[in-house]
């Protein structure tokens, strides 16, 4: 039999004005197991806590019920108080008589009645509590960052600077991501390469950072503090240790018809290539699809010209197994495909381009060496139309329901750069809304209008048609209530952005939950924005939601601080309120394994004693370090074998019985 003490808090007048606290304390005395009850003005204060400690010692209490505010507020406080007095902290129950009673009722009589019932339920539950002991696990002091764009690089640098080892896994041949493709960055117009490439160099030179480029995560097992990850290092066809990065192989390669991914397909590259001059590592990779040697067996020019003997056609994919304490997802984004947008003629007219293509055309290292020229005839455009919200804020199938957030600002940037470089170019921007929340953002957009004379037209473009080499743009001017027709030389579409497609398979692998748009969901949208609901998995950059470079860098730093917080611990104390299987009841159906969102359940052969019969059965096993105590398995188990410690079916039913009594 338990010896229970009940402590009723007034919370000043928060509770006491609506609930007769003395009556609650008195009524609970008649409940089974209750040997002591009292009330106090502020139970969470030092006075209240010492009253609890004294009562535990004086009356030899085995458990306490605190009738006060939400357990979210002070459960941890009262558990600590109990622990100090020598009680198991899980022998504390909270009856929430504030948020769920005094704050939502006016009538004192009714409020008091309800508070008595809530206290009675907590006592009934506590009578079935058992002391729980949290397990401990080791923390491996190394982090894995998946994705080598600005988000991944920043997180890795911050974690490495704190003294922990970090590996970056990047699927393309170089780190740098999308930011490396940009020309200038808003709102200060500093060149993207000038601020990104030094960070890329820092990451590659940092003694605590290892780069795995042209690599992908193959599989993962384990749990927070103790992940084991297999990384597939794809065969480059070039020995990175021997290569000097001289570039002769690229120069001599006779196959030069592959589209350059880095330049958005606007120019060609050789079969053996480095994505861009400042790529890290500065080691080429052989694209086997377009390599003559791989396709026909003949050629071998690169091998002949390489003085370092670095070309290795026989190189195979390599699997590397590494262990990590924390994993950061920084998988980034890509613009959506515009294939379904026939009205803009993107697939038909070479002079209708995406904004990312426009970035490459503006860039000094791009296909036109920074001169803005039409892709079709390499003539400078005299009239350029920008169309915003192409695929953003659209509820129809080919679009995205969300605002892509970055387009308003980069379109203002593009318009401004064009007018700056070519003042005789007419620039039109069709917009639905101009959204510029951010430091110095609206001022930037207004400069495009007021100082640079960019024509902003409120309305959408309905269609683009090619006529005699010009693009006829038909759009709405909603303020004039007119349909406008502009003869343009180039149309730039601000395509919506979406999470990189690799995020989905990684999300499944890491049991990191995603929303309907495939953005990773955070543990709490406001209070835990850089943590995935799965312990030990963190989110950095655009894979969590649309954001610009300043937001990405800030979030990358926040993710790093969470990782550092985890890695600085030697041991992790788990949550003991986890699922457990009553093995003789388990029928081995696997339903719990299928519903578990964290991958915490596996099936194992165990020796089970059922009514005196000993036999080996396939039963459910919970990894307590991975289990988050969500209870999905307990409600799905058809045989009632699964139970959540601290919230067992018996405890919940006792509470319900007490309320219905």
């Amino acid at each position: 039999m338990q010896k229970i003490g009940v402590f009723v808090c007034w919370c000043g007048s928060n509770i006491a004005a609506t609930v007769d606290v003395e009556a609650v304390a008195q009524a609970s005395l008649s409940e089974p197991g209750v040997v002591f009850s009292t009330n106090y003005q502020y139970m969470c204060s030092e006075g209240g806590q010492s009253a609890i400690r004294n009562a535990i010692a004086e009356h030899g209490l085995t458990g306490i019920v605190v009738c006060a505010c939400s357990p979210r507020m002070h459960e941890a406080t009262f558990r600590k108080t109990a622990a100090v007095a020598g009680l198991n902290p899980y022998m504390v129950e909270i009856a929430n008589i504030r948020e769920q009673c005094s704050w939502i009722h006016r009538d004192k009589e009714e409020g008091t009645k309800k508070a008595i019932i809530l206290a009675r339920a907590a006592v009934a539950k506590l009578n079935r509590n058992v002391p729980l002991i949290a397990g401990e696990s080791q923390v491996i002091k190394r982090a894995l960052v998946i994705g080598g764009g600005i988000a991944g690089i920043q997180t890795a640098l911050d974690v490495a600077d704190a003294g922990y080892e970090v590996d970056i896994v990047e699927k393309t041949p170089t780190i740098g991501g999308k930011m490396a493709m940009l020309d200038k960055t808003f709102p200060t117009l500093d060149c993207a390469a000038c601020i990104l490439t030094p960070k890329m160099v820092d990451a590659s030179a940092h003694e605590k950072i290892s780069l795995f480029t042209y690599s992908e995560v193959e599989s993962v097992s384990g749990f927070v503090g103790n992940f084991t990850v297999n990384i597939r290092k794809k065969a480059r066809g070039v020995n990175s240790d021997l290569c000097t990065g001289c570039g002769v192989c690229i120069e001599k390669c006779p196959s030069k018809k592959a589209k350059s991914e880095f330049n958005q397909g606007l120019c060609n590259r050789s079969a053996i290539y480095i994505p861009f001059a400042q790529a890290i590592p500065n080691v080429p990779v052989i694209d086997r699809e377009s390599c003559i040697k791989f396709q026909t067996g003949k050629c071998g020019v690169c091998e002949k010209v390489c003085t370092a003997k670095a070309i290795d056609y026989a190189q195979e994919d390599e699997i590397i197994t590494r262990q990590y304490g924390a994993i950061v997802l920084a998988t980034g984004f890509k613009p959506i495909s515009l294939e379904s947008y026939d009205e803009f003629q993107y697939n038909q007219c070479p002079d209708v381009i995406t904004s990312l293509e426009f970035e490459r055309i503006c860039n000094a290292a791009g296909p036109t060496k920074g001169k803005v020229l039409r892709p079709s005839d390499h003539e400078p455009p005299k009239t350029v139309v920008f169309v915003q919200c192409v695929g953003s804020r659209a509820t129809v199938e080919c679009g995205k329901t969300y605002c892509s957030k970055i387009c308003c600002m980069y379109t203002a940037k593009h318009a401004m750069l064009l007018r700056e470089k070519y003042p005789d170019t007419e620039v039109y921007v069709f917009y639905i809304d101009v959204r510029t929340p951010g430091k110095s953002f609206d001022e930037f957009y207004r400069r495009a209008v007021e100082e640079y004379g960019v024509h902003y037209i409120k309305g959408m473009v309905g269609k683009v048609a090619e006529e005699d080499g010009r693009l006829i743009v038909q759009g709405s001017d909603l303020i004039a209530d007119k349909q406008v027709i502009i003869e343009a030389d180039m149309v730039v579409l601000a395509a919506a952005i979406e999470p990189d497609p690799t995020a989905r398979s990684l999300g499944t692998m890491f049991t990191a939950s995603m929303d309907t748009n495939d953005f990773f969901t955070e543990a709490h949208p406001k209070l835990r924005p850089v943590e995935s609901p799965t312990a030990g998995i963190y989110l950095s950059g655009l894979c969590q939601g649309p954001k610009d470079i300043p937001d990405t860098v800030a979030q990358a730093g926040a993710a790093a601080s969470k990782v550092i917080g985890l890695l600085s611990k030697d041991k992790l104390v788990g949550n003991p309120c986890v699922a457990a299987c009553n093995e003789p009841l388990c029928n081995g159906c696997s339903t719990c394994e299928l519903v578990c969102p964290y991958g915490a359940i596996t099936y194992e052969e165990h020796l089970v004693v059922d009514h005196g019969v000993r036999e080996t059965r396939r039963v459910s096993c919970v990894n307590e370090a991975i289990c988050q105590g969500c209870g999905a398995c307990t409600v799905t188990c058809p045989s009632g074998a699964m139970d959540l410690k601290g919230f067992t079916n018996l405890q919940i039913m006792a509470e319900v019985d007490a309320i219905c009594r």
Partner: protein
Amino acid sequence: MHADERKEAETIIRASGVNVRKCMKCGKCSATCPNFDEMDIHPHRFVSMVEEGDIFALMQSKSLWRCLSCFACVERCPRGVEPANLIEAVRLEVIRPLAGNRLRPEAIPALLDEKIPQQLIVSAFRKYSK
């Protein structure tokens, strides 16, 4: 708003099945309309006028008869609002009380010439039959 007009607005919303609140006022319907210049009230305004219950003005507009029923606005709307369905619902509210069909199927062959797009015939039935 007049009680009759409010009732009319409700009928039009019900008959067309259009949720006018989905409109984000981007104007792509008017941008895409091939007969924009012939209309006195433009497709995007149809949506906001129905939302505001300004129905009598719509019923008297030239646009009811100038709309080609080509459904380009329905096809292009990023929010799935379907402005042409609203125009059609308003038109039917005008046609129905007048009773009788203005276009009989038997009369069609005599009106045909080889340049007439098939869609025009379908659209004509939308306008001249109740």
